[in-house]
């Protein structure tokens, strides 16, 4: 069994990329209605914040490197009491691009069992994936494999020049942990223009300065360089988080380069703290 942290570290070693730097620029899949088994092609744009590491934010049964250098991660998902395979493969397709495919065994079985209602989408997939002469099993297998292409947009600054340090310290009340982010250039702290945080698993956005301009998740996270988190929902003035034990924090800060270009720096930290080791809110 591999945790998210282990999976991210494995990919970094095996593929030489830092998944935190990658965001999703395209996503397409045949979405399958689990009631009717009807498959519909869906190429909705991913949200701006979706990154590889969000896709990988789960535990895995196995991780292997394939002969072509791609990495395959396997896990099982439960649906209606049965276990189904989910196979995620990351492939370096050149030009700093990474493609991720997610094979969903559940979708495969649903489409196979409902071939008659899916004639149009199977035909669409044959054209789309250039599979005119392939067996129907192979076409359905491809349909059940959602693909995403992730694009890496390299920063202008030299690697390592700009960094963010995420530090933790005791909160102002029992049961709280304080997070502070500081932007550094060549190891010395500098001021940032904007800072934004995301915390997984998070919950209700209370107790923090926020832009309130909309209800998108990003705007609900703090924009200050330090804030406090708690696992106690009753604490109405700290940022409450779900679950217990381990959290993943992403801090984004932007600054202006001497040529006026705005650069954004991302840092991620997985934090384990006894303060966060409490209970499950839902009593399950």
């Amino acid at each position: 069994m591999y945790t998210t942290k282990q999976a991210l570290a494995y990919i970094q070693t095996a593929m030489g990329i830092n998944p935190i730097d990658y965001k999703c620029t395209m996503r397409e899949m045949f979405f399958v209605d689990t009631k009717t088994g009807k498959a519909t092609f869906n190429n909705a744009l991913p949200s701006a914040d979706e990154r590889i590491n969000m896709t990988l934010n789960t535990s895995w049964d196995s991780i292997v490197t394939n002969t072509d250098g791609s990495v395959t991660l396997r896990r099982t998902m439960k649906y209606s009491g049965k276990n189904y395979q989910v196979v995620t493969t990351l492939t370096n397709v050149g030009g700093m691009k990474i493609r991720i495919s997610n094979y969903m065994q559940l979708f495969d079985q649903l489409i196979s069992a409902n071939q008659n209602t899916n004639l149009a989408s199977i035909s669409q997939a044959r054209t789309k994936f250039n599979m005119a002469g392939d067996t129907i099993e192979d076409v359905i297998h491809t349909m059940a494999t959602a693909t995403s292409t992730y694009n890496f947009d390299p920063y202008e600054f030299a690697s390592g020049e700009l960094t963010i340090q995420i530090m933790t310290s005791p909160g102002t009340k029992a049961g709280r942990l304080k997070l502070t982010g500081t932007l550094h250039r060549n190891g010395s702290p500098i001021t940032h223009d904007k800072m934004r945080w995301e915390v997984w698993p998070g919950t209700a956005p209370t107790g923090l300065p926020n832009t309130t301009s909309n209800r998108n998740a990003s705007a609900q996270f703090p924009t200050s360089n330090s804030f406090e988190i708690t696992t106690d929902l009753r604490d109405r003035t700290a940022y409450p988080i779900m679950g217990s034990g381990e959290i993943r924090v992403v801090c984004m800060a932007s600054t202006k380069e001497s040529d006026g270009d705005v650069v954004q720096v991302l840092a991620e930290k997985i934090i384990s703290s006894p303060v966060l080791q409490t209970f499950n809110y839902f009593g399950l």
Partner: protein
Amino acid sequence: MKDYYLYQISDAVEEQINVSQLICVASMTKVNGQTIMDTNEQPALELFNEKSIEAVQGGWNILDGRTPVAFVEITEEGCDYRYYNRANKHLATVVKCLVFADSSVDGIVNPGLQIEVSNGVATCTNITTINGQLWSDAQANRAIQMKGFHYVVTKVSDGNFGSVKYLLEGNGYNQLGASRKEFVTIAKQAGPNVDYVWTAKDQADAEEEVLAFNFIAAVKNESSYLRINFSQIFNS
């Protein structure tokens, strides 16, 4: 003169659980064998609207009429109450975490209208409460950053809001809130300062005109609609 509120909490419920001070801060929904966390803050009032209550082992059953539809228990584990959407909590598909609200942070909004009919003109005054206070008296806080109301007049058949016909959308709002915060007027005949005229033809129609009102508490944060039929309005 008559007051209408979106959420009606019975005294029996309020005696057992201080519902009007509770806010739902996290929900867990079981879907397809997985669980989804929802984090929008909502007043807990909706869960107890027009419900009754009975104390049972370990907590309370929430009843719809005589049928237990939910179970509530006190907890110390991160929240104050847990709400299960089944009387048997082990069968629940939705679990909600309820906590006592802090009026400096939270907003518990119960949309309300006071209706006064005089000379065929119904004046529907906004009497929404925020954290138990009249909206105009409640202090702005993190959840309540602007105050205002938005209303629509719709035509519905048999209470079916799925295929409403919009007759009027009033009190447009922007980031600063609604243009008029206090009231809306409806009359049976055209006159000065009347927002909507309920014509004789409409009154004779089988379809019903409904005034739907929601309260704007924060940017893009609105309450559910309080809906009142025109016939109810003019009988107030």
